[in-house]
Structures are given as C-alpha cells and as structure tokens.
C-alpha cells in the first residue's frame, strides 16, 4: 500500500514525537512542530499519539491513495474539500487536495496504520539539515510513493466503511489554533535577561512581534525593535532548549523551534513556556505574537492544563468511537 505525491506542497515532511537522547552529540529532538495537533490526528485514525504523520506547511500537497485509506487532518485549517479534525475514508484512486492554509500554518495528516518508513535513531521524523529520517531524509517531492502500513483491518476503518458520508458527525477540537492575533505566549526570564538594557527588557514584552519570512523549523526570527545589551561582552556558549529566545548581535530575537541547535553562544532573553510552543508553531510568516512574563510555577501549571485539555480531547475521541 502506498500514497502517491501528485504535488508536494511547500514543505511536507514525515514527523513524529521526535528523537530524544542525542542532544549531547548535538542532535536536537526535532519532531512535529505542533505535537498536540499530531496527537489529535493520530487519535482520530486509531494510532498512538506520537506516531509519524505528514507535517503540511502553509501550502498543502495533492495526494492519491492506492487503496481506501482512513485519514485525518488536524492543526491548521487549509483550503480543500475534506473535513478537518475528523476521520475520513478516502476512496482509492481519488485526488486528495490540500490547498493553502487559511488559519494557522501547520497541519498533520495521519493515516490509519501509519507510514511505513524506518525509524532512524528511534524516530521517524525527518531531520532536514542532516538529510536523514522520515522519507529519504527530505521533504516530499512530485512522484514520491510513500509506503503505508495496512490500516484496513482497524475497527475504525470498518466503522466508516459502513457509512454513506465516509466520515463522522463529530470532530476533535482545534486546541492549538489561535482565534485571533497577536497570540499570547508566556515566557520566563532567560539566563541573560538581566544583561539587557531596561528599554530592551520592556520592548520585549511591549512589542507585538511578527514572525519574519526567514523563519523555519530551526527557529522563528521575530521582527520588531532591535534588542540591545549595554556591555556587548560575549557569553560562554551554553545549552539551549526548544523555546529558548536568543538575541544575536543584530538585536533580532530568534525563538528556537523543533530543529534547533542544542547549544548556542547568543544571550537568551527568555524561555517560552512549553505549553505555548505548539501555538507559536501555528504562526505563519507575518503572524503576530505578544509575550507575557510568568513564573516557572505558572509555566508548569500552563503545561499541566494543556496536557489535561489534550487528554480530555483524546478521551472524547475514544468515547465517540465507543458509541454504537
């Protein structure tokens, strides 16, 4: 079984829960930029939450499935004739077209059974800078045929096969999509926050930042006023993390995203609360974000709440499927 790529879209890659345990040799965990949307898409087709799916970015692909295939698309809203946030049984040989994003930037297309690509260092995620993982270590191209595991045996597949609409009348909640911009993202102070001048510290939280066009899976560059430090003395290179906000000498802050470098020599003004990283990942270039400071305790609370919202959505999906 496979799915054929008729048009690849802007940047369509295979991504899963990420590759952990290799940061000490400089390899970041990577994985889905919005792991919440990934988990929802997987749950809708009956896969484990961190299973590999297609991460679709800003402009979607056109695909053709060889066999009847149960799919679900969660995350950003794209133009297209398929329902979002619902399982849908795509007929063999039909064209499955994903247009451009109209809300959010990234969607996840999961298929029942999953994509049959080999894990590399414990993950099926595509790591673009290193050219490995996912499908041939790269973004999808015209003509690719991605192997699928057979999902037709699943109970969910047969449930939908028996319906006329080939989908369901309920949907999963879009947990990470912003209703309006600027989105609010919580940060705690970074290690070098105090070394920035007070006007830069204020500007960081007062500014509505825009995601610059030269942003990617490694980091989001933020357009706004340049941030400065009075003594431009170099800092000792140190560790970084998903959501670290670094400020290079240009003064343009960079929020580190999934494929970030694991250490860095630029001062870090802030660290984004992990609960808010997935929502930030849903901003396309030009998208607006506003930072609010919080304590480490509040960041941990936010994470707990985000986790509970996801868990209850996953329980909701299981409950809907469980109804006769």
């Amino acid at each position, binding site marked *: 079984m496979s799915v054929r790529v008729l048009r690849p879209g802007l940047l369509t890659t295979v991504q899963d829960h990420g590759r952990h345990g290799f940061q000490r040799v400089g*390899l970041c965990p990577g994985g889905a930029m919005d792991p919440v949307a990934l988990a929802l898409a997987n749950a809708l087709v009956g896969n484990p939450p961190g299973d590999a799916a297609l991460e679709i970015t800003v402009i979607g692909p056109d695909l053709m499935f060889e066999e009847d295939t149960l799919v679900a698309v969660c995350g950003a809203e794209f133009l297209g004739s398929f329902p979002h946030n619902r399982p849908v049984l795509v007929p063999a040989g039909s064209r499955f077209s994903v247009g451009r994003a109209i809300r959010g930037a990234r969607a996840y297309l999961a298929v029942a059974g999953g994509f049959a690509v080999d894990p590399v260092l414990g993950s099926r995620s595509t790591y673009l800078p*290193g050219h490995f993982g996912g499908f041939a270590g790269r973004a999808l191209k015209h003509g690719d045929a991605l192997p699928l595991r057979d999902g037709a045996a699943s109970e969910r597949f047969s449930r939908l096969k028996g319906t006329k609409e080939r989908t369901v009348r309920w949907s999963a909640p879009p947990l990470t999509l912003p209703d309006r911009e600027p989105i609010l993202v919580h940060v705690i102070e970074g290690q070098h926050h105090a070394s920035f001048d007070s006007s830069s510290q204020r500007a960081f939280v007062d500014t509505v930042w825009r995601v610059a066009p030269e942003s990617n899976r490694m980091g989001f560059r933020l357009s706004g006023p340049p941030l400065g430090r009075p003594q431009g003395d170099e800092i000792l290179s140190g560790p970084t993390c998903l959501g670290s906000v670094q400020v290079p000498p240009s003064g343009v802050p960079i929020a580190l995203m999934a494929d970030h470098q694991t250490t860095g020599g630029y001062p870090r003004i802030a660290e984004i609360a992990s609960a808010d990283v997935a929502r930030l990942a849903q901003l396309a270039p030009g998208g607006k974000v506003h930072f609010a400071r919080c304590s*480490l305790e509040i960041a941990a609370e936010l*994470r707990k709440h985000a986790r509970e919202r996801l868990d209850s959505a996953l329980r909701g999906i299981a409950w809907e499927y469980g109804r006769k």
Partner: protein
Amino acid sequence: MAQPRPLGVIPLGDSAAYVEFSSTLDLEVNSVVQRLALAILKRKVPWIRDVVPALGGVALHFDPDHAEFPGKPLDEALALVNDSLKQGLDTRNDPGREVELPVCYEREFALDLGEVAKKANLPPEEIASRHAAAEYRVLMMGFAPGHAYMGGLDAKLAVPRRASPRAVVPAGSVAIANEQTVVYPYAISGGWNVIGRTPMVLFDAARARPSLLWPGDRVRFRAISKAQFVELAANQ
C-alpha cells in the same frame, strides 16, 4: 583542586535546567562536568531524557509528561547533581576515548591557512604542524550533530573567527578560532578559520554510534597527504 560546586540552577523553560559551575571557560571545571554528566546518565532517571555537558555546566532535559516527573524539578536536578558529586565522580578512569582524526592540511582544503598564518605571524607549515602536535579534548558538542568544540589549541594559533562567515563550509573541514578547534560534520555555514579537511564521516545516523566524537573524548589530528585523503575518503 577542590571539587567545584554548582553556582546555581537556571531553568531553560519548564522542561530543562542548566546546572552552572562556571560562567567562564575553565578546563578543569569542564572535566568535572564531563564526569558528572556520565554519572547522571548512568542513573537512568526516568523523567530525564537528555544530559548535555556544556562548557561550564550540565543541562538536563526533562520529560514533563512522565508519570514520575517531580513537582519541583529544579530542586530535584540540583539534588541529583550534588548527590552525584558527593558519591564521588570516577577520577581514575578517563571517561573519554582516544580518537585520531586524519587531516589533510594541503592548500586545496586549507581555505584560510594563509590568513591564519598572517594573523598568527607564523609560516603556514607551522600552523599545520602545531595543530597536529596538540592533544584536544571535546568540551561540548552542538551547532550541528557530531560537531565538537575541542579545547587544547596551541595558544599561538588562537586567532579570532572570520569577519564574515562562509555560506557553506565543506563537510569535514577542520577549523580553528580563539582557543578551540572544530570539524564541520557536513556542508553548513560557519565562521571558523578552515586549515584542513578530514575524510572521516563525523556523523552518520545509520551507524550504531552515530557520532565519531563524544563529549569528553581526547582527540589527536594526524597529517595526511592528498593521496591518503582520497584513499580514505573512498573507503568511508
């Protein structure tokens, strides 16, 4: 030397913490950091996913969704570090392995050798011989998978980074800046002064040990000819 103590624990957001020992580069502190990182890894703490030795401390990356993730992870992280220090780090056995990297210092690969020679006020041949004469230590990895920051560079070779970084440095390029040396694992942009190239593959995700270099390794460079380079590269 008295055993160094942590200066403090700095949250890297709510999912990681950096236990800092020094805010400047101190090779003795770094050697303790390397042993400490291994000691913590050996404990296999279920809610810690990554232990990263850095130049002046060790970073612990958490799995906040793990059932055993503690309510006060910073306190736990610091306790883990202090406990490991108290139990005594293994000082008899060097945690790092010895790695020898063949390097061709010929002009074709040594893109910045002339510039470095001028800045260091040494003949170009001496840059290569001094670089190959020293023993280095992997102090930290980062920037790219398999990319090691190595300390131990001859002080006479300590020149600043290039004024403007190269858009693409060829894979295997051996470069120096300030008091460190690096090897670029694949073609990538970079600002260090390139003085040679190794035919070895620094990082290959398909290998059981994907990285050729690991934190704490002791590294020597062996000068090879262009012909040897070509032969070794063909056998990779």
